[in-house]
């Protein structure tokens, strides 16, 4: 998953977030043409950091961040060395967001594309309403994850909390550990060769090397809620 091979400066442009302030930090990142390398220091849990980036710049954030880190990312390659708050990479369109740490709830919410990798755990509602993004979580995910998931792939190396994939549309979910419970209309499905291949490719892009695809189980939509049926009324 290495970012595209642009010519980038040998040394990153260092921005002290605490000193520079959020507005000026984001302004500098948003103004870059895609060949930039940035190192953001001292984020102290700041919200809305590195949001709205539209070029394939490399951004490393050294330390924990708050809500909506790399929100609506469209092409940038953002790495956070630390935990992230609610809604990391929410509504991402393209690019990559890597969290070397854990994520709070709603990681990758409604994201349309790109790759989100979380090395630690993700909280509740991971991948809620996801619309095409690929999410790989090294640890476990919380309850109501992938609620109303529409498209994309969600890979979890650890466990999944309650009501996984409730009201699921077309997301492919792969879980290596235990699933506390499946949500309405989410069912286990066979892991056919094409799924092994899909999963292997995702693990490779995420840089996960020490597991095999045989260790995972696949979940998807039973599609019984796609059109109203009086016998399913209680599930609505």
């Amino acid at each position, binding site marked *: 998953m290495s970012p595209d091979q642009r010519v980038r400066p040998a040394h990153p442009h260092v921005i002290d977030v605490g000193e520079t302030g959020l*507005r000026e930090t984001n302004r500098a990142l948003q103004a870059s043409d895609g060949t930039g390398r940035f190192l953001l220091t001292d984020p102290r849990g700041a919200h*809305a950091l590195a949001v709205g980036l539209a070029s394939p710049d490399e951004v490393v954030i050294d330390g924990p961040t708050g809500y*909506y880190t790399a929100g*609506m990312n*469209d092409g940038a390659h953002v790495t956070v060395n630390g935990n992230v708050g*609610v809604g990391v990479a929410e509504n991402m369109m393209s690019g990559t967001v890597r969290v070397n740490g854990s994520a709070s709830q709603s990681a990758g919410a*409604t994201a*349309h594309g790109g790759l989100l990798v979380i090395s630690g755990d993700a909280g509740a509602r991971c991948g809620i*309403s996801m619309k095409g993004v690929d999410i790989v979580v090294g640890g476990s995910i919380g309850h109501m994850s992938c609620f109303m998931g*529409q498209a994309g792939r969600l890979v979890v190396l650890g466990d999944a909390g309650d009501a996984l994939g409730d009201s699921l549309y077309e997301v492919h979910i792969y879980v290596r550990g235990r699933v506390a419970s499946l949500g309405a209309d989410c069912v286990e499905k066979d892991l056919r060769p094409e799924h092994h291949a899909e999963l292997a490719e995702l693990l490779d892009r995420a840089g996960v090397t020490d597991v095999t695809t045989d260790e995972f189980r696949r979940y998807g939509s039973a599609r019984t809620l796609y059109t109203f049926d009086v016998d399913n009324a209680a599930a609505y």
Partner: protein
Amino acid sequence: MPFDGHSLPGQTTAAQPAATRNAATQAPPGTPDPAVLRESATFPRTVIHEIQRAAATGIYDIRGWGAKRSLPHFDDLLFLGSSMSRYPLEGYRERCGTDVTLGTRYATKPLHLDIPVTIAGMSFGALSAQAKEALGRGASAARTSTTTGDGGMTAEERGQTSRLVYQYLPSRYGMNPVDLRKADAIEVVLGQGAKPGGGGMLLGQKISDRVARMRTLPTGIDQRSACRHPDWTGPDDLAIKILELREITGWEKPVYVKVGATRTYYDVKLAVKAGADVVVVDGMQGGTAATQDVFIEHVGIPTLAAIPQAVQALQEMDMHRKVQLIVSGGIRSGADVAKAMALGADAVAIGTAALIALGDNDPRYEAEYRALGSAAGFYDDFQDGRDPAGISTQDPELASRLDPEAAGRRLANYLHVLTMEAQTIARACGKAHLTHLEPDDLVALTLEAAAMARVPLAGTDWIPGHVGRGL
């Protein structure tokens, strides 16, 4: 008359069919004699029909439009025109301003509108692309704004719209940063008057290939939208969400917060605390493309009751006119515009009325409405996608019936009439600008309206619940 439980049998006329839906299940022809057959006030035929329908299908009734029951409304207010104690302005000659600027609190590029009547959010999906284009054309001709909806921004709409408000909804269908930056304002939607606390709905008949692609959904399925946003809940988290939206768009665009009218006093205060530039309050008469009838008729408060609460909240925070208030839900005429503004709104939004101006419920499609079990003037099955007027549909044949240019002209005409009517009233009240109208220019015809609108009963100084303020 679906909700008039007291109407007597035999009162139905040709223009008021007994059934607006499922005509086949109604009583056989022949007029019952009210002297012989006594209809129950508790269980009139409309109620009996609904119980039978529920028992047969196992699902609640879903429809479009807004509340159809009778509610205290602007009709129950009157203006005190000038005569001796105050002097009127001369019509046409002496200026009566109508412009409004939205987003003066934080946005570096506030939205300037020539008239205080905007077009409310209605989605592509709920409406055809032609209808969306027509709304954009009409609004642009009148130099006001229109609004996207739960389904993203279409090229037709953006292309034909000079001032476009982009809705930010729980589903985030079609949400992307490119369109966000193309928007002239951003409206964070918590709810709407037809269904405060409920999510959206788009039934399979309307999920065409294009709608499905824009929403990343399979074609033809029943789409449900969430009632809460996926990545924030409550005003403290909304404040952070608004910060993110501003950071993505460089603090340029006004950020609106739209709520369905319920606990309006608190909701408006919290919207301001969360950082809104503009608060939009949609009363229960506000329309929808599709939701449960029980929701439309039984949740929310009338627009008339919501405005004074919203204005009080803003005034207590010293934010009235600093955070602008847009009111919607049942605005039909220039009198309604003037009354909403006199009560303290900075602008209004229209939805249902705009669709009617485009051609919704047009009598020339009477035969086709009848074939659907409805009639011109009654059609509310926006969820079905079979709109003969080509507005609430994705059927290419039906949608092609609506000429966006002609429909846009009709909307522009209607917007001009609304504005001229409001100016006529304002001039009569001696006001050189619509925003100079005030509650003191109004009286109420009914106790209910007096109490809700907080204006005195006509001919008295009595506002129920308030002490007299002196004549």
